[in-house]
């Protein structure tokens, strides 16, 4: 048994009802709900796994009321830290551990959200290769060209909401697209309707997105959805001293007001 | 018009609006086009998709009897986007109607039998159609008993009809309100519909029972009917489920393998026994 399996078995034998981790799938690592010690041998750890397990933590029908453990990659840890800063996680029933090195690395169990936050402080949020390529492509474009580019990209959106479903920070029980009084966002795909949806999502994600790229990977038609949210994180860090990929200690930049906030943009 | 495109509604003029109860209205609708009225016919139990142009469609039964010519009626509670859109309309406004959809109460099979109608609250509308139909063809049926209850006196719908039915010597009407819902001058029963039904204890011999109401009422009414000796094939109800197309294509209203809009909304209890109860 490797260390991951050992840890899982010991947790399951000590009253934890579910280990949320990954197993081997046809397209790489996929989420795995490990309920029994016998299943623990299927658990793998893949730092590059793109499905963010934190998406499941806020689903009461899956988590139940018992103790649950999450085998978290960096991406999942960032999401958990952000969710905790938004008061969405009740710590008592959640055990979080990670593997400090790939494969047969050491298991590190976190004593609480504070430890997760400090673990993340020296881990800089990466920028995906795809986003670097987009940076280059877009930096040479005029404003009109950029708008055309995005209208074109988003016209391919089929409104399957895989991006929303895959995002751990999209946890509204009634999404704005599901509200019909008034109908803020058209439910059907259309070039402008899709722009409304995507822009809306980016704005709801500002300062909350942890740059995990689950949305981009989830999109079946290959729209680089996460790029805009990821870029906004850099913009935010300039204006509000926010560090991309780390939860702000005193509230989200755009949902908290402090008297010291700059007002130089108000004319 | 609506013959070719099943999604295109008939245009209907609102002829009369009746406020039945807080938040509940009845609309009497006339066809805008004479040729639409001429080609239209329906049977008890069928429903339609009613349009508030600008808001969408909502599913209600046709609450008037097919024996009444020249108009159809629907009764609804203003709950969501479409029903509030309809609620805002006035007499003389135009709205839409697609239908008739669904199956029908097998009234031909009921000829010569006693009929027991059991309804609760806002579920009287689907029943009103078949009750009025039966009363308009009274000679076809033997004893007719109606047990109808609502949360309070104010919540009873079709107050005028209830008076008519109470005055008829060939109908046994028993109205009830939930305990606490009575007013000082209330002369009807006080108690939940299933227990009042138990008290009335209609005979199950050569009798068909038609039940319509909120799920909780149905849950407690079926055992009473069973106790009285009613067989499952002789108990009928109507199911409701979220609908959009109304014609068995959009895949939304299905319960197990049956579509409420196509194989229903009228089901016998025997049919219900075969489909998963959790899906409606």
């Amino acid at each position, binding site marked *: 048994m490797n260390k991951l399996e050992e840890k899982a078995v010991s947790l399951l034998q000590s009253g934890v009802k579910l280990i949320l981790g990954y197993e081997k799938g046809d397209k790489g690592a996929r989420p795995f709900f490990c309920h029994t010690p016998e299943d623990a041998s299927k658990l793998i750890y893949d730092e590059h796994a793109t499905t963010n397990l934190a998406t499941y933590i806020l689903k009461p029908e899956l988590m139940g009321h018992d103790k649950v453990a999450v085998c978290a990659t960096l991406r999942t840890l960032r999401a958990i830290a952000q969710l905790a800063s938004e008061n969405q996680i009740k710590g008592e029933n959640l055990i979080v551990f990670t593997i400090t090195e790939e494969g047969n690395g050491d298991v590190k169990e976190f004593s609480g959200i504070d430890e997760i936050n400090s673990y993340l402080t020296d881990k800089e949020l990466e920028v995906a290769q795809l986003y670097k390529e987009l940076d280059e492509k877009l930096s040479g474009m005029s404003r009109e060209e950029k708008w055309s580019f995005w209208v074109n990209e988003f016209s391919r959106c089929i409104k399957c909401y895989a991006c929303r479903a895959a995002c751990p920070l999209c946890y509204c029980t009634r999404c704005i697209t599901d509200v019909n009084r008034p109908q803020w966002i058209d439910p059907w795909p259309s070039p402008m309707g899709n722009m409304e949806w995507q822009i809306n999502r980016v704005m709801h994600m500002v300062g909350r997105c942890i740059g995990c790229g689950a949305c981009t990977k989830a999109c079946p038609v290959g729209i680089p959805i996460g790029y805009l949210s990821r870029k906004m994180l850099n913009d935010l860090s300039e204006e509000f001293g926010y560090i991309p990929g780390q939860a702000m200690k005193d509230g989200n930049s755009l949902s908290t007001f402090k008297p010291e906030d700059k007002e130089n943009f108000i004319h | 018009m609506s013959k070719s*495109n099943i999604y295109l509604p008939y245009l209907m003029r609102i002829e009369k609006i009746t406020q039945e109860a807080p938040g509940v209205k009845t609309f009497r609708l006339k066809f805008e086009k004479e040729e639409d009225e001429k080609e239209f016919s329906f049977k008890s139990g069928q429903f339609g998709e009613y349009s508030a142009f600008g808001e969408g469609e909502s599913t209600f039964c046709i609450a008037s009897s097919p024996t009444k010519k020249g108009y159809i009626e629907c009764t609804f509670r203003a709950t969501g986007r479409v029903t509030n859109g309809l609620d805002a309309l006035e007499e003389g406004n135009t709205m839409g109607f697609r239908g008739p959809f669904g199956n029908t109460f097998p009234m031909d099979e009921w000829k010569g039998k006693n009929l027991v109608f059991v309804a609760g609250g806002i579920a009287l509308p689907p029943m009103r159609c078949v009750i009025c139909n039966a009363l308009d063809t009274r000679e076809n049926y033997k004893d007719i008993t109606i047990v109808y209850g609502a949360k309070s006196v104010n919540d009873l719908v079709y107050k005028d009809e209830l008076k008519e039915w109470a005055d008829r010597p060939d109908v046994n009407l028993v109205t009830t309100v939930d305990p606490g819902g009575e007013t000082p001058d209330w002369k009807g029963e006080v108690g939940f519909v299933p227990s009042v039904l138990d008290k009335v204890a209609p005979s199950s011999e050569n009798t068909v029972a038609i039940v319509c109401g909120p799920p909780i009422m149905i849950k407690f009414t079926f055992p009473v009917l069973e106790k009285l000796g009613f067989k499952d094939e002789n108990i009928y109800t109507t199911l409701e489920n979220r609908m959009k197309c109304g014609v068995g294509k959009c895949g939304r209203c299905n319960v197990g393998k049956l579509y409420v809009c196509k194989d229903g909304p009228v089901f016998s209890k025997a049919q219900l026994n075969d489909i998963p109860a959790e899906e409606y």
Partner: protein
Amino acid sequence: MEKRYINKEGLAKWFGSILNSGKRVYAPVRHGEKVDFHQVHSLEDVAEDYIQTTLSAKSVIFPRAEVLFSYKKDNKEVTLEDFNPDSVPETVIWKIRPCDAAGFIPLSDIFNGGYDDVVYAAHLNKTTLVSFSCAKADDFCFCTSVNGSPGATKGSDIQLTILPDGGAIAEIITDKGMALIKSADDCFESAKDEDKSKYLADVPVYFDLNTVHDKLKEAFSSDIWKQQSERCLGCGACAFVCPTCACFSIEENSKGSHGQRIRCWDSCGFSMFTQHTSGHNPRSTQSQRWRQRILHKFSYMPERINDFGCTGCGRCSRACPVDMNIREHLTSIVK
């Protein structure tokens, strides 16, 4: 059914003549790593070297969003403008797979069964399907487990099997297919003595469909639904990429005094799909919704319209963000 041969130049010439006839032609087009159906204006636009497109071609006949009718309100009056079937142009869908062509059969049974759906029928009647048999398959394909095969012709109007010389065996299956080759009849030669099956991919059979159907009869209350659906995120990707999924919603595009009634794709996997306005939701958990997807495709549809709701194209499994592999799930149901 007629069998012919067409050489490489003839194929290009025939394609050109279809474009010149003014028909709309949809074909697979590459966009980065993804291949999807778009309108094309030359043979060079058509993608090569891929196993399957991400989305099916159903959007050509069953659009993602379409106007059912429009309305105008003026004081108390309303006027309606109906859908015009003549507004649908003649269309050819080029280079679909046999599984895609087969998928149009249950899709059409849903729309044309019971009440006639004139909107759908208008698109279907004006569309000719040209399928290419499959020389390659991947692990996600399982057509042979669901009454299909890489060379099956059901649902196709014409099927081409590309030969090593760049030409093709052309099977003209329907009258619509005959009509499509009529104007370029000289491009086609009489059939060569070629065995089509030599050029077909080998797709292993993973499970017995009848066993699946039988097992599902007793499976409603099984634990397997919760087990299989735990990781499902409840997005609509599987339903939207599927060639046979027909679930739709009817929405209002309201612009004040005028507007349109729109039909758009929907998915039984969405949490609000069956939710009543009262708040009651008969399928409130993902496991109930997953069960509905499988039972609908493999149990209810065969009983209602005598057809399974799956042609083994594998798109749902490829598109799923959490690797819900339907072939894997069906195989485990059989066990």
